[in-house]
């Protein structure tokens, strides 16, 4: 296996493909040419890239839930409910955790037990086991675009089946679906496997079929500084574009400070446009994730957190927002709770759609800092790869130049300690080996020292822990309890 950021030739793709389709029995039902025809017959309202393009044009913010259950009919019922009672604009199929780890055998078991117990024993929709026909049943039952949302390091078979099954959007990437979601899988391996996915989608593109790709922005969802997630989002966007992907949604998980969050969405868009300028005809959109860390258990408080995410998404004018539910802290939501989160979000997105958050003063300052940090990281990544982004990414993780806080992967240095400043913006308490300039380091340090003075304690890991618990306890900044 040789990893280079170069578009795969078709021969190589087809060679690997044979192996991929053998990973589970349903693989043999995938017929690429037939699938392309199938997609060409889909009405535009079922094609993610088309629906996103309209939203982008109209500066609207679309809303999308997470949802998936074990059995097909129940899954359709769930999605129909979210469309109707939740006014979801875009639909997901969240994949169960066994499928994410390629444990199709256990997924099969989960399907059986779900049938027996009469409730979903899986935390998502096992699309591989249900196969192309199963996916198409879902696609055909619904009147909105469907996206696969998962967390799968090796997502090749899932991509083959789900896309042939009529899904028009595929989440993930070689970094974002590895480091937060795996322990022992090398970056090199997942970048390679995701080149396959991107090449597959590039192939569809070549045949005139639009499939949107969305790197998973929030990563571990826990105090991730914007420049860390931006760096990864842009790398994954570039790697996808190289394989021929044309329609890309870059994501970011809410931090909770309005200025930082708006600055993050604006700078993500601008930076990505700069970096992707070398590729033609890219349709770039953004997705904002409502708070991805620990939630309050109380539903009224959870509604507050959901609303704040919705408001921020609208003020930042993200193309879509991924919606949490009032059950978040406790468990996979009922369809009713899921629809509630959607309706709360819709109310705010509608109320705020014509309001702007103007790029002046603090906001400009924050954007500038995010831009600087991100560029310093990305430049070093390219340097480390001698100009090759894929190689550079692998080496950057080795060197801790790319590093994700709280990630389970052993391929991640894990040196970062993020903490909130006095206004709740996320700063680097320890920037590990991120290649930051003195100016950037000083900026971050000063912000945290300011908080330290306020709380009469040295910034430390205890501060980080307090921040992790804070939103769940009703605060943004984890001030010491008095």
């Amino acid at each position, binding site marked *: 296996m040789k990893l280079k950021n170069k578009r795969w030739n078709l021969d190589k793709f087809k060679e690997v493909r044979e192996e991929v389709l053998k990973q589970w029995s349903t693989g043999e039902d995938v017929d690429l040419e037939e699938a392309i025809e199938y997609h060409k017959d889909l009405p535009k309202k079922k094609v993610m890239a088309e629906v996103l393009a309209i939203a982008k044009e109209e500066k609207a913010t679309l809303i999308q839930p997470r949802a998936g259950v074990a059995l097909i009919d129940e899954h359709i019922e769930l999605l129909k409910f979210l469309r109707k009672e939740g006014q979801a604009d875009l639909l997901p199929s969240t994949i169960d955790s066994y499928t994410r780890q390629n444990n199709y055998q256990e997924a099969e078991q989960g399907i059986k*037990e779900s049938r027996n117990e009469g409730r979903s*024993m899986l935390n998502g929709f096992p699309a591989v086991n249900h196969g192309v026909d199963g996916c198409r049943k879902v696609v055909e039952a619904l009147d909105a675009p469907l996206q696969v949302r998962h967390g799968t390091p090796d997502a090749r078979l899932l991509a083959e089946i789900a896309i042939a099954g009529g899904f028009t959007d595929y989440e993930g990437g070689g970094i974002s679906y590895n480091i937060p979601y795996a*322990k022992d899988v090398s970056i090199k391996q997942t970048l390679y496997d995701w080149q396959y996915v991107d090449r597959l989608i590039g192939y569809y593109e070549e045949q005139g079929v639009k499939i949107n790709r969305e790197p998973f922005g929030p990563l571990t969802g826990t105090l991730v500084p914007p420049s860390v997630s931006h760096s990864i989002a842009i790398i994954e966007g570039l790697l996808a574009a190289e394989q021929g992907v044309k329609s890309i949604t870059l994501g970011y998980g809410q931090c909770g400070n309005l200025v930082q969050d708006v600055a993050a969405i604006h700078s993500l868009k601008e930076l990505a446009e700069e970096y992707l300028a070398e590729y033609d005809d890219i349709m770039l959109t953004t997705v904002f994730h409502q708070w991805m860390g620990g939630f309050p*258990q109380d539903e009224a408080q959870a509604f507050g957190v959901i609303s704040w995410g919705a408001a921020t998404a609208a003020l930042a004018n993200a193309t879509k927002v991924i919606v949490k539910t009032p059950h978040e802290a*406790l468990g996979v939501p009922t369809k009713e709770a899921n629809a509630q989160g959607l309706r709360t979000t819709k109310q705010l997105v509608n109320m705020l759609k014509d309001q702007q958050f103007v790029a002046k003063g603090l906001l400009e300052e924050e954007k500038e800092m995010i831009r600087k940090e991100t560029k310093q990281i990305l430049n070093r990544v390219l340097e480390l790869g001698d100009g090759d982004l894929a190689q550079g990414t692998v080496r950057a993780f080795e060197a801790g130049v790319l590093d994700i806080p709280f990630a389970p992967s052993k391929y991640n240095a894990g040196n970062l300690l993020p903490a909130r400043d006095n206004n709740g913006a996320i700063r680097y308490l320890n920037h590990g080996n991120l290649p930051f300039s003195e100016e950037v380091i000083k900026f971050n340090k000063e912000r945290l020292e300011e908080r330290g003075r306020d709380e009469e304690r040295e910034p430390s890991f205890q501060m980080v822990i307090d921040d*992790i618990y804070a939103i769940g306890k009703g605060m943004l900044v984890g001030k010491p309890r008095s």
Partner: protein
Amino acid sequence: MEEKTLVLGVIGSDVHAVGNRILEEALTKAGFNVVNIGVLAPQEDFINAAIETDADAILISSLYGHGELDCKGFKEKCIEAGLDNVILYLGGNLVVGKQDWKKTKNKFLNMGFDRVYPPGTLPEAPIADLKEDLGL
């Protein structure tokens, strides 16, 4: 006080790493010898680690909802491996969805766990219980 050894980890295909990291920190600070096998840990890894380190307790996390499937038969395997006396704690978001906690708790107590903790448990709770159960 004599140092007690705990095996800590997140079972099954579960990758939720944050609570695990915080528990490690808090339990270590509380004076325990913590052997953290991390996320994505199969039943066997818990048992092997407990045997190797002569552990006094095993603390299992399951956040992602597959707790029922992943914990099946764990107590029996412990007994087979001669770990009859090792204390078993379980915590996290154990089942899929927001369900009645009493029922969930009883389900896992019946499966042989000594203590079972609801979502959102702070480290103080298991620390106090460990002190009691280990006679510290």
